[in-house]
């Protein structure tokens, strides 16, 4: 039964990916979709996706929730843990029971367990031989992902990153592609827009993000476009999602 529904979910996911990739899509929205979809299909509870920036640091671009806790955990993951190992080696890292790895990644393990996550799986984001980031999926159960699960996460990630064009690559080795830079820039815009909403409506940063995303999806707009309009104070997304 589970296998059937997973198969259906997977087909739906690949159809959606193919649809997206043949249109004029936004990288940030695509990556948000990717982490949400993988979290759902692989039966995990939370996920975060990091991209490498121009100075080689991993930056959180998309996550299943913008709650401070998950953000914090993912930031720690950028400094130590399976995600960083996965990014450096370019191969998936699955940790079935976090409690066995406390010695290896003390800070990351402690924070993950404190938040109730007992297993984590990291998938590298690859773009034509280059590792451009990694995706973390967290589960509240102790469970090693099986090879089929790992392959699913990797396949979805690979197809999604194929969409990141390389034709506009900036040649300098220390600088990433224009499209990846756009993703990193959009993230800053989204944070600024969250601040605008927090100040105008008193909502939490997480609710502010939910409102931005809802408005973007309901109106078929990119997250960056909605964020831009919120910052310019020409769009009020709080009224549309309050009900």
């Amino acid at each position, binding site marked *: 039964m589970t296998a059937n529904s997973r198969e259906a979910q997977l087909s739906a996911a690949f159809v959606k990916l193919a649809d997206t990739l043949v249109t004029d899509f936004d990288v940030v929205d695509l990556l948000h979709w990717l982490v949400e979809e993988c979290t759902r299909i692989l039966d995990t509870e939370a996920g975060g996706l990091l991209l490498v*920036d*121009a*100075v*080689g*640091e*991993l*930056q*959180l671009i998309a996550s299943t929730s913008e709650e401070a806790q998950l*953000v914090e955990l993912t*930031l720690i993951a*950028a*400094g130590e843990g399976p995600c960083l190992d996965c990014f450096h080696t370019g191969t998936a890292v699955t940790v079935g029971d976090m409690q066995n790895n406390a010695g290896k990644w003390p800070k990351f393990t402690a924070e993950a367990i404190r938040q109730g996550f007992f297993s984590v799986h990291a998938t590298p984001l690859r773009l034509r031989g280059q590792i451009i980031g990694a995706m973390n999926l967290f589960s509240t159960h102790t469970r090693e992902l099986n090879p089929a699960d790992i392959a699913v996460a990797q396949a979805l990630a690979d197809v999604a990153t194929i969409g990141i064009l390389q034709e*506009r690559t*900036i*040649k*300098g080795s*220390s*600088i*990433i*592609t*224009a499209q990846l*830079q*756009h993703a*990193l*820039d959009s993230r*800053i*815009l989204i*944070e*600024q*827009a*969250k*601040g*605008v*909403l*927090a*100040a*105008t409506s008193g909502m939490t*940063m997480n609710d502010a993000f939910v409102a931005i995303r809802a408005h973007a999806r309901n109106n078929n707009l990119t997250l960056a476009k909605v964020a*831009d309009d919120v*910052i*310019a*104070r020409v769009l009020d997304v709080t009224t549309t999602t309050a009900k």
Partner: protein
Amino acid sequence: MMADASGNPTEGHNSARLDLCQPFVNDLPISGASVTVISSSGAQVALCASDTVAARLDEIQFELGEGPQWVATKTGTVVLLPDVSSASHEQWPIFAASVGQLNVGAIFSFPIRMGAATVGAATLYRDTPGGLDQDHQSSALAIASAIASTAVQRAMTFATDDVPESVAVPALRREVHQATGMILVQLDTTATIAYSRLQAYAFAQGRTVLSVARDVVTRTLAFDNLPL
């Protein structure tokens, strides 16, 4: 143990290795580049210049308080002067008179943006006249964005003798950008001015931008009601 030749502490951090001007020179058909950011006091701080002409071009504009890089910084737009000798220099008459002494054919100033906030400008020059095509303009803007957070951090380090914010965490935390958004509402202004006010307040209080930003985000500090 030998000290670093330049006298600078050797940092393990990646951003220490990134020359902010070099990516422009490497990837674009230009002769040289300079990068300036707005410091906490509101002045422009030169972070790098790839050669003496680029340095002089930056200096002249700083001294005169006018020129393409000021316009790029203030308006957040790209300023293109493909032919310096024949351009109309209405916006910067004194600069126009001084630039003639330099061997500069074309000048291009690109805003350095952090989200919706403009934090500085990169000024590129070529010794011969001629434009920059769309692809090169896109590349220049992408490089400008890519160096933004490192540039801002360096400017902060120049402005204070403070220990820079922890180098182990990503350059500028989300709270800084969220606070910028909150302050722009509180002061009914733009993201550019909101960020500069955040930076100036932190400087005046002898605190880090991140710690002030956290107070703003947790609503313990509001810029429309600042304690004196």
